[in-house]
């Protein structure tokens, strides 16, 4: 499969604190790639560097073979990368409808946007019932669904997902990951950051493990899941 996104030797720092050093990874078109690791290992920073919310201090980021290092965040969205930011940032004061419209902020094709609202409803029927409701009044699971639906409104080629399982019941996690798989089967490539290792390895084809801002290990998800040593060393021995 051709490569959609690749990071080569990417480093990033918050002030003097090194957050990422020489991270290299590759996301093939059509795949779900997982990025795993402990709290503070640099998973979210990696996503934020890709979406240009955090500047990189070195290395190269290629999307469809072209560098996006010098792009602004809105240019990255326009190029086809949408992010579900960490921390469940729905626009609480706005309706579900406005949240979805904001996801399509850079698009001018009203008809296509309306189609994609319907597509979002097909993935997440509950959003249709909540369409006029203020997003802040949604349950945690519904907000997570809205976040994913909102990111899809940009019609991204690559979806960056940050901890979609955070704070959800096991049943809801199963449900959300089922939908994530469907979204992927429908043609969206996904880079997934997760704490829930079992679920993440289950749905991804390849995984990277970050430790202290560096890639400590990587390989096909199935073999990482079967490798007891890796599990114990990096992933809390699940």
């Amino acid at each position, binding site marked *: 499969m051709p490569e959609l996104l690749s990071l080569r030797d990417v480093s990033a720092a918050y002030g003097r604190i090194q957050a990422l050093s020489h991270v290299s990874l590759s996301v093939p078109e059509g795949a779900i790639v997982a990025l795993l690791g402990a709290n503070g290992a640099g998973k979210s920073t990696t996503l934020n560097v890709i*979406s240009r*919310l955090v500047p990189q201090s070195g290395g190269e980021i290629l999307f469809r073979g072209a560098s996006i290092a010098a792009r*602004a*965040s*809105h240019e*990255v*969205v*326009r190029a086809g990368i*949408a*992010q*579900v*930011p960490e921390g469940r*940032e*729905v*626009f*609480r*004061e*706005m309706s579900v409808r*406005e949240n979805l*419209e*904001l*996801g399509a*902020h*850079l698009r001018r094709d009203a008809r296509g946007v*309306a189609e994609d609202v*319907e597509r979002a409803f097909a993935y997440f029927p509950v959003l*249709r019932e909540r*369409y*006029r409701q203020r997003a802040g009044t949604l349950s945690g699971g519904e907000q997570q669904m809205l976040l994913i639906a*909102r*990111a899809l409104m*940009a019609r991204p080629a690559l979806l960056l997902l940050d901890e979609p399982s955070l704070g959800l019941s096991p049943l809801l996690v199963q449900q959300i990951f089922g939908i994530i798989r469907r979204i992927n089967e429908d043609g969206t490539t996904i880079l997934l950051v997760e704490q829930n290792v079992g679920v993440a390895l289950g749905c991804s084809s390849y995984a990277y493990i970050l430790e202290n801002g560096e890639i400590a290990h990587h390989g096909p998800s199935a073999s990482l899941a079967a490798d007891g040593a890796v599990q114990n060393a990096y992933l809390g021995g699940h």
Partner: protein
Amino acid sequence: MPPQQAVAALPARASSNLRLGLLVPAVAAVVALALLPVFTSGYVVYVANVLLVYVVLSLGLNLVIGEAGQFSLSHAAFYGIGIYAAALGNKLLGLPLVGCLLLAGVVAALLGGVIGTIALRMRDIYLALTTFAFGEAMQWLFLNWEPVTGGPNGLRIPPSSLFGVEILNDKQAYPVVLGVALLMLGATVVISRSRLGRAFRAVRESDVAAMAMGIPVRRVKIMAFLLSAFYAGVAGGLFATFSTYIHPESLGFQTTMTVLTMVVVGGLGSTGGALLGAVVFGLISELLRQAPAVQEMTYGLILILFMMFVPRGLAPAVSRWVRGRGHV
């Protein structure tokens, strides 16, 4: 009906009923307002002119603070810039009224854009302090740049002219003031419902989430300052059409606070609220004009009470009432 259309049609019908219910009183109100000078004294028309200027000021301040969530405390400065620009455009360049109003808006907007660009680096209290300092600096400039502003002696504003007719009193100015205020109100509704308005509200809620949506946050913030200053400038230009004299004393922080109170009383982030707050609070302020000491205390008290007990302002309560009546 396929489900897709059902979803689209339902809310549309409900809101068009509501819209029709509001249209009749709105048209009646505009007609009544337009006929005001026929039935009332010059003083009432003067008060109406002042209230309409406050309406435009409030609409502008609400855009930057209420919609975009950026604290700007230099509204009176942009208002002053508008007044001087209009007055000087008239006095020195002999511009007609429309030219003066545009000049007032554009000059204020340009400075607003500059302040917005500087303000990008700051947020919350730092932004409030910086814009406050800019407001104070501008008032100092108004007071001391004597060749241009007349300094502490104030500036006589010559009568402006519309299509060759000189505007000599409040009643003659009123149609212009009312017309422009309604135009600005219409523009505000359009902006608020546009992509830009949505982007404002997204930035108000979260910079990061807004960026993740592909919203150019910097540009949107500058735009908020620029538009808000444009409104204040036009409000200044309107003031200059019915006033004969301007003194810098009325262009300081007190005025900014008055407009801020109007927006808060009406309901931050709501166009109707800004309108309502300006009218209600403008009337109170006019009634208390004879007693300046009581006036300032009353402002403070109203602001505190609203922040404590009605933080969302009058607008939500009123719109609930209107909707409730619609169901009967």
